């Protein structure tokens, strides 16, 4: 078989990397970075996911078609989230000529943008 067999040492290294990143993300959460907390947290999570995907799931040694499948799924996920958010985040964007009680009443009480 031509399937790649990774050395076990690599797996242990990835494991410790994952534990370290978990520790970091957990502790950084207690530092107040304002809205950057979420960004940092997601970047670290993406990094951990990349480690699992690349090494545990063998993406590093996989066919390019497989990587394309992963990319496609992530791409469409981003589309789904961003176009949906596009609606919610622009609900209060109204032109001056649109001002009227009916429109500026928010759909959902407590909305904040």
């Amino acid at each position, binding site marked *: 078989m031509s*399937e790649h067999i990774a050395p076990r040492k690599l797996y242990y290294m990835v494991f410790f990397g994952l534990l370290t990143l978990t520790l970091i993300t957990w502790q950084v959460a*207690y530092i107040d970075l304002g809205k950057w*907390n979420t960004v940092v*947290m*997601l970047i670290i999570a993406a990094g951990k996911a990349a480690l699992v995907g690349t090494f*545990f*799931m063998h993406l590093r040694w996989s066919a390019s078609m497989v990587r394309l499948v992963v990319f496609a799924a992530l791409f469409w996920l981003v589309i789904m989230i961003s176009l949906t*958010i596009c609606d919610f985040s622009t609900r209060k964007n109204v032109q001056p000529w649109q001002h009227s009680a009916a429109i500026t009443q928010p759909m959902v009480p407590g909305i904040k943008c």
Partner: protein
Amino acid sequence: MHNSQTQTVVYEQFDDRTQQHEASSLGMWIFLATEIMFFGAVLTAYTVYRNLFTTAFEVGSHLLNTKIGALNTAVLIGSSLTMALAVHAAQMGKRKLLMTFIASTMVLGGVFLYIKFVLEWLHEYHDGLAPGLHWTYAGPQSGHVAMFFVFYFILTGIHATHMIVGEGIMTVLFVMAWRGRFSKERYNPIEMFGLYWHFVDIVWIFLFPLLYLLGAHGAH
């Protein structure tokens, strides 16, 4: 073609083992792509409400036990390690090691589920933090905090369901390994299941910060 129990079976529709392996690998990854969209749909809804009710979601997140969440994250990462080592053992044709690592993965998965269901869910239910079943939180924006918990239970529930299915499949794989059905030439099911298990781990890697770490900082 079926030579002996440990020799490769190449199914009729395939020409050779390579084609079969490439097909099953591509198939499993496409299935994982559907899972990305499946969880992604819930995460889309979660993202919308998170942006609408940021403070309430932080309050809700703060009510979760972050230490237990972090512990569970480490447990699941550990199970991913043992799963990777199980695939490795299968590739090396080491039956007993393979069984050990499958069993370890099952145990760690079981620990995760125990922590999740008993130490967290049961606890949260008793504390009156289970919307629709037992909700007694009386702080401000109680309705929006409840929305956080709705998504908490849905996300961790769907994730846990995937783990339970995984435990079931691992039981089958363990028995197959015990019966000597895997070898250096024939370990595809182990590898394919490994992809599934790692994916379940990746989902949790995102759920942990999104659910537990939102409200870690800041005063309420």
